[in-house]
């Protein structure tokens, strides 16, 4: 569905050097990205600010011209075949609206029908579906400027889907939304992804989006892909460790050691062990139970935030 | 008591600090400055040719060299005086940010005036000197023959800036009552184009019309007054009278702006923004 090879985008930035001189520098916002996405996949695109997420998305949707590299989306080349491509994709920019600010929400949907030239019955069916799923009914006669951000985002999602796009691009779709609206958007996208006829590509800062929605995770940093795979693969690759935390009734007589287990910290009667690369918790728990009486025990899964933070930190120093 | 006597110098220092902040702020808008400079020069050429064709050797109180100088000086004054510049007050009223201005220990009119004078200072260096330099290279300008004209012109230009500031402050303060300043701004844009002597010196108009404009409106005092001072259209005494008239208008406009601000503040306080 989507294929890129050696995708690159350079910007010229001029920075002030000293009092009067300016220096022009070429910066690669996207620096050689190879990506392949199959029909029906849901892909989360993750990276710190300025990593090149939005730039990539804008090249995939035909907004920006790549400096180098090849792109194919739905078998089309985005910039030269922009309008053809536009009929087959939907785009939601978290901070750019497709809706008519001063008109009722319904009018925006009607205008988009004309823009995408969707036959009226098909449009009506699709709209009814979205209105139901996103609970838009009461909002249709309301001018967009009077909608809350969460309500508007539900409108934006509908607007992007009315022409039944093959690929839906979402750039920070949950940014700035309150908890309830975030849930609604995620719920809707989960259902959409499950149906399997729409390919979903979303960039986000919010890891909860990723964990809820995407099996596949692409992490970019400094314009390069640093990870492409599932969250589990990410953990195993970057050695994120599960932990066993125990609270004891009395101190251990002698330390418990096992291959693949490392004591991370001991604070009073609370001990934290790290399990290295796939070691099971069972053996450790059994040994601990034999050595002392346990008051409490927990196995803590690694947090994706930690892995990603470590990944970025590494990129920054490397 | 000691505090009291220190009051004046502190205020003076605040004013200077605000002026220099305004100067620095505008010195960073390089792209816009360059674009504006280019356009001033372009219009300078055009108006020179047109007014030369109208005036010929001499007409309406100007000879050819005077009218050419008049054109380039007035092009240089547009940005310096800030004829079309925005103070940002209307936007701050609309967004409610103006409350932050009211919380500061300096009165808003004072703070905005300082910032605008800083802006004018930077504009004088680039947007005034630039067009006049180009005009001098391309045409035979008439330099002042009385040495006293130079300092008098500087005073006249500063006063013109203050009058323009007062007009723009009033225009934008209208947003306290009208929500935005679009309407007053359009009226201001119109008057600042047609009635300041930018397109034609007001002496081209029928005497009575010109007299009404000079006596009843601030517009001729913004551009035509300083331009007439520098081309020495009047005697030394006449020039002094012109500058005195500007001082009167400057004082009046500042007083009216301050009054409008007080009314606006009261309205803001009563209605809670």
């Amino acid at each position, binding site marked *: 569905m989507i294929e890129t090879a050696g995708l690159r985008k350079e910007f010229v930035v001029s920075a002030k050097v000293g009092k009067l001189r300016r220096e022009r520098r070429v910066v690669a916002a996207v620096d050689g990205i190879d990506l392949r996405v199959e029909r029906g996949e849901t892909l989360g695109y993750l990276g710190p600010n300025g990593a090149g997420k939005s730039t990539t998305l804008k090249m995939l949707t035909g*907004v920006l011209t790549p400096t180098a590299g090849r792109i194919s989306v739905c078998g089309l080349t985005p910039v030269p075949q922009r309008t053809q491509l536009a009929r087959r994709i939907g785009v939601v*920019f*978290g901070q750019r609206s497709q809706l008519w600010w001063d*008109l009722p929400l319904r009018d925006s949907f009607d205008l988009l029908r004309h823009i995408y030239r969707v036959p009226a019955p098909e449009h009506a069916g699709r709209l009814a579906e979205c209105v139901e799923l996103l609970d838009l009914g009461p909002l249709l006669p309301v001018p967009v400027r009077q909608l809350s951000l969460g309500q508007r985002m539900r409108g934006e999602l509908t607007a992007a889907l009315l022409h039944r796009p093959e690929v839906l691009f979402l750039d920070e779709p949950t940014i700035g939304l309150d908890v309830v609206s975030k849930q609604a958007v995620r719920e809707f996208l989960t259902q959409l992804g499950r149906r399997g006829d729409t390919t979903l590509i979303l960039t986000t800062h919010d890891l909860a989006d990723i964990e809820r929605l995407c099996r596949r995770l692409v992490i970019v940093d400094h314009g390069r892909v640093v990870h492409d795979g599932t969250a589990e693969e990410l953990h195993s690759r970057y050695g994120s460790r599960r932990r066993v935390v125990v609270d004891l009734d009395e101190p251990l007589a002698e330390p418990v050691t096992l291959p693949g287990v490392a004591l991370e910290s001991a604070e009073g009667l609370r001990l934290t062990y790290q399990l290295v690369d796939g070691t099971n918790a069972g053996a450790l728990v059994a040994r601990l139970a034999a050595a002392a009486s346990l008051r409490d025990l927990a196995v803590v899964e690694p947090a994706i935030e930690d892995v990603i933070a470590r990944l970025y930190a590494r990129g920054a120093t490397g | 008591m000691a505090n009291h006597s220190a009051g004046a110098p502190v205020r003076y220092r605040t004013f200077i600090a605000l002026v220099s902040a305004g100067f620095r702020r505008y010195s960073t808008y390089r*792209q*816009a400055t360059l674009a504006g400079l280019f356009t001033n020069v*372009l219009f300078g050429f055009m108006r020179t040719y047109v007014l030369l064709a109208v005036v010929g050797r001499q007409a309406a109180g100007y000879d050819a060299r005077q009218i050419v100088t008049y054109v380039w000086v007035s092009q240089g004054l547009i940005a310096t005086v800030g004829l079309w510049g925005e103070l940002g007050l209307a936007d701050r009223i609309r967004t409610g940010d103006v409350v932050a201005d009211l919380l500061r220990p300096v009165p808003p009119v004072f703070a905005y005036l300082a910032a605008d004078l800083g802006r004018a200072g930077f504009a004088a260096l680039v947007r005034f000197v630039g067009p006049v330099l180009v005009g001098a290279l391309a045409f035979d300008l008439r330099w002042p023959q009385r040495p006293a004209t130079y300092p008098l012109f500087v005073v006249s230009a500063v006063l013109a800036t203050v009058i323009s500031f007062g007009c723009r402050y009033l225009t934008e303060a209208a947003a306290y009552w009208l929500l935005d300043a679009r309407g007053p701004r*359009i009226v201001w844009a119109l008057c600042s184009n047609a009635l300041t002597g930018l397109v034609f010196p007001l002496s*081209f108009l029928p005497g009575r019309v010109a007299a009404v404009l000079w006596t009843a409106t601030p517009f001729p005092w913004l551009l035509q007054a300083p331009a007439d001072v520098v081309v020495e259209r009047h005697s030394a005494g006449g020039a002094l009278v012109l500058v005195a008239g500007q001082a009167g208008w400057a004082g009046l406009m500042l007083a009216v702006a301050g009054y409008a601000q007080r009314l606006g503040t009261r309205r803001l306080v009563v209605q809670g923004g």
Partner: protein
Amino acid sequence: MVETYLHLLRATVRAQSQYRLSFAVDAVGTSFGVLLDVVSVLVFFRVTRSLAGFPFREAFLMASLATFGFALADLVAGNVDLLRFNVRTGRLDALLVRPLGVLPQLLVLDFAPRRLGRVVESLVVYAVGLGYAGVGWSPARALLAVLAPLSGGVLYGALFVAFGSVAFWWIESAEFANGFTYGGRDFAAYPLTVYSGLFRRLFGYGLGFAFVSYYPALALLGRADPLHGPDWLGWCAPLVAIAAALAAGGVWRLGVRHYRSTGS
């Protein structure tokens, strides 16, 4: 296709009609503005009896022709100068992902109906100018009287687009663009003979403003060109306009390709 844009246009008008007061104020304000260059000709003739060899009625015809052509262009393409705003807010991104041309979308979405007032006014002024100038009417001249302002409109429109596109490279170029568009209107409001040297060649012929009012007016008046140009130059206005439109289209496409979206 046309139908789609008509739907968009209606939506724009509907959206703007919600701000009645603003609309009224704008309409009144802009309608005064249009007269200034025509008024300036009236004022000039209080001081002089001829403007670079042309009597009032002829100079007035030129001014009215320039004003009318400009008003037409301003109605259709004047809002290109909002490109800067559209780039900065990222609105352009939203337009680029739709299956329509970006330029027509911008023109339609930022359409300002209040500019219609100017068109009507300047049309009246042009009609007065034509009547007062004492044109010796023939079918050919009648055709030219229609073609000339339309060509002028296309030329000004092309300049609006071409210099508006400069904002793709140079975001704060609005005043620079104004120099050529509003400057072009003022340039053509006065007889070409007023100007001289490089300035006349650059603006009159290089950018084509001589073909907005000067040459068509000469042809309408049946006057020989004091600058010794051939008589058929008055009929070249449509060709100049088409050439300018093509060039402007090229600059626009180049600009879109160069577009660097802002922010996230």
